[in-house]
């Protein structure tokens, strides 16, 4: 009798333990039976807010769409949004706050490379999956770091390679002048531009490394004029890009084509207004990782969706950049399954290979690859009309490495 009672009690206890074991399993932070918490951050104020507000809104819009369709494996996505001001110190604080105060599952954020790079150490130490928003983030993806995925719109390397390929093939330029900043962004851009130019057999006749805080670009432009290049390739930020374009017009250099990296011309119409001289646009091109002009037919689907979500806001050219990272995150969450862990999510991210219908090339990751996209188109802007130049250009992943 006693033996039967003991056996029954032991069986009951065993069954209770076995049943209880399922919900007791420690889940990763930010995941419950009903929700997945994702941290979003970008510059939402300050001079670089144009890089952040629309992409972040677009990412929020995508997550909301996914939630409307029932979420992922029965879980809804909940977002915590923070402003990093594109400031590295601020970005580190924001990421720490998201991870330790809000206990997010993963982070989708960063519009500026230095800010993203600053978070790298914390991300790696705490093993938090991180998908950049619209930062190029070269040093965050080269060499690849397990938990950091990025460059959905292409790295600086890819951007630099594409502009040189375009100048060589479409403009038949053989003597190239470069304007790049003297920071990490400029270093990455210049490394690849130089390598591609050398491979193609073009000559870099002038390389002007300028500070992002430059107040006068007279001498860099005089140096370029003296070098008599076939093309000027500028990778300047918005403010110096305007100063450069103004001098380019002022010094009557418009017979030489100018190719501007997309970072310098976030909103073409405002860029044009700031330059204040339509003659500048007689021979002017800019690169774009999008699959069409911002107002082109292939982008309208996203623009219209954005207008439904944010009727009071006119989206800038950076808006669509926020979509592919969010698409990648939701696809990886799907692939990782119901038993979601950070490690399973990272492994799912590594297998992604999809057309975003936003960018010029596919989003692809792999075990040793953390830069998502390597293609771009080039657009001619004559001051009134934007025309996509024929062909898409892609970085081979080797030049400049």
């Amino acid at each position, binding site marked *: 009798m006693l033996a039967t009672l003991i056996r029954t009690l032991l069986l009951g206890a065993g069954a209770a333990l076995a049943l209880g074991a399922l919900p007791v399993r420690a889940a990763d932070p930010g995941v419950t039976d009903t929700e997945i918490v994702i941290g979003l951050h970008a510059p939402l*104020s300050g001079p670089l807010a144009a890089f952040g507000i629309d992409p972040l809104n677009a990412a929020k819009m995508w997550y909301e769409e996914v939630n409307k369709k029932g979420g992922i494996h029965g879980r809804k996505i909940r977002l915590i949004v923070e402003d990093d001001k594109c400031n590295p110190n601020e970005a580190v604080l924001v990421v720490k706050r998201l991870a330790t105060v809000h206990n997010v599952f993963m982070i989708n954020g960063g519009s500026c490379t230095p800010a993203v790079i600053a978070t790298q150490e914390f991300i790696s130490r705490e093993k938090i999956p991180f998908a950049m928003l619209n930062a190029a983030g070269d040093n965050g993806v080269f060499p690849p770091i397990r938990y950091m995925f990025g460059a959905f719109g292409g790295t600086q390397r890819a951007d630099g390679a594409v502009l040189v390929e375009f100048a060589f093939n479409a403009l038949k330029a053989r003597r190239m002048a470069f304007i790049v900043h003297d920071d990490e962004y400029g270093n990455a851009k210049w490394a690849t531009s130089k390598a591609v130019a050398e491979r193609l057999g073009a000559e870099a006749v002038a390389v*002007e490394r300028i*500070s992002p805080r430059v107040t006068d670009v007279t001498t860099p432009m*005089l*140096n370029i004029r003296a070098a008599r290049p076939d093309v000027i390739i500028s990778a300047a930020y918005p*403010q110096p890009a305007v100063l450069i374009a103004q001098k380019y017009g002022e010094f009557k250099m418009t017979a030489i084509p100018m190719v501007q990296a997309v970072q310098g011309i976030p909103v073409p119409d*405002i860029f044009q*207004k700031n330059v204040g001289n339509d003659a500048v646009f007689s021979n002017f091109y800019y690169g774009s990782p999008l699959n069409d002009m911002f107002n082109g037919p292939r982008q309208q689907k996203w623009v219209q969706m954005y207008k439904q979500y944010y009727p009071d806001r006119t989206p800038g050219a950076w808006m669509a950049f926020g979509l592919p990272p969010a698409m990648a995150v939701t696809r990886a969450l799907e692939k990782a399954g119901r038993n979601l862990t950070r490690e399973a999510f990272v492994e799912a991210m590594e297998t992604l290979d999809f057309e975003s219908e936003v960018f010029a090339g596919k989003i692809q990751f792999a075990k040793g690859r953390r830069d998502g996209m390597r293609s771009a188109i080039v657009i001619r802007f004559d001051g009134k009309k934007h025309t996509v130049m024929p062909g898409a250009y892609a970085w081979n992943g080797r030049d400049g490495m």
Partner: protein
Amino acid sequence: MLISLLQAIASGVVTGCAYALVALSLVMIYKSTDVINFGGGEMVMIGGYLAMFALLAIGLPYAGAFVFAAVVAFMVGAAFDRVVLDRMLGRALPGQSVLVAMVIATVGLSYVLKGLVRVVPYTEEVRRLAPLFAGDPVFLGPIILQRQDIAIVVIAVLLMRAWWAFFNFTLLGKALRATSQNPRAAALIGIPVRAMRMTIWGIAAIFAAMAGILLGPKLLMTPDMGSVVILAFAAAIVGGFHNLPGCILGGVVLGVVQNLVGLYISSRAIVLTPFVVIMLVLVLRPQGLFGGAVVTKKV
């Protein structure tokens, strides 16, 4: 090559005058109150944004934008003195100097102004203030200059002359100088010292705002455009912090040297030039290139 050199010098003169305009505001406050105003750059910045607000949001003409910016800037400068600096002075113990604390307060002012302006919608994008003098560039032989550039040079010189005349020939200017040189003696002869200090902060803020309006079309508008104050400090140090014409010449020297460095050494070295120049001047001629012999100021 000669054409490039002449163009570099001409552009350097223009840029230098832009630095000098900001330096005028700094020197004005320093001469009158002994305070080094680290918020000077942000006063320039708000001047530009106030004008942009007046032009775009209120729809005022440029003359109206100048007046609007001047009035608001005066109020900001005067309020900072009355609400912050004056209280610091009032709470100081007899014989205690609060100069360092006042200088630190100006750093606080710069952060407050930068923070406030970030809530304005115009600060989301880099924007260019409409130039006061638009039109085709002016050709001086092979040298190309924008009309706005010429305006900066002319206005910088006119402002310097006006300020010199104000300090030397008006009762208010003399009262301000007296207040600066010996506040106690100034008070004894009936000069309202507190009002004088407040006035000088207000006027300096107007000068900074005017600089912002002139620089807005040239340097473009961002909340960080106040960083130009470092170049203005360099201009003032090169010219001599007590010397108003000197700070104009200091700005010009700095602008030209920057461009020559960019032309003959490297574009990368342009941004380092002001700091090298500051160090050289402080080591070799602390009173500035155009300052007189070092004298004891207080009596």
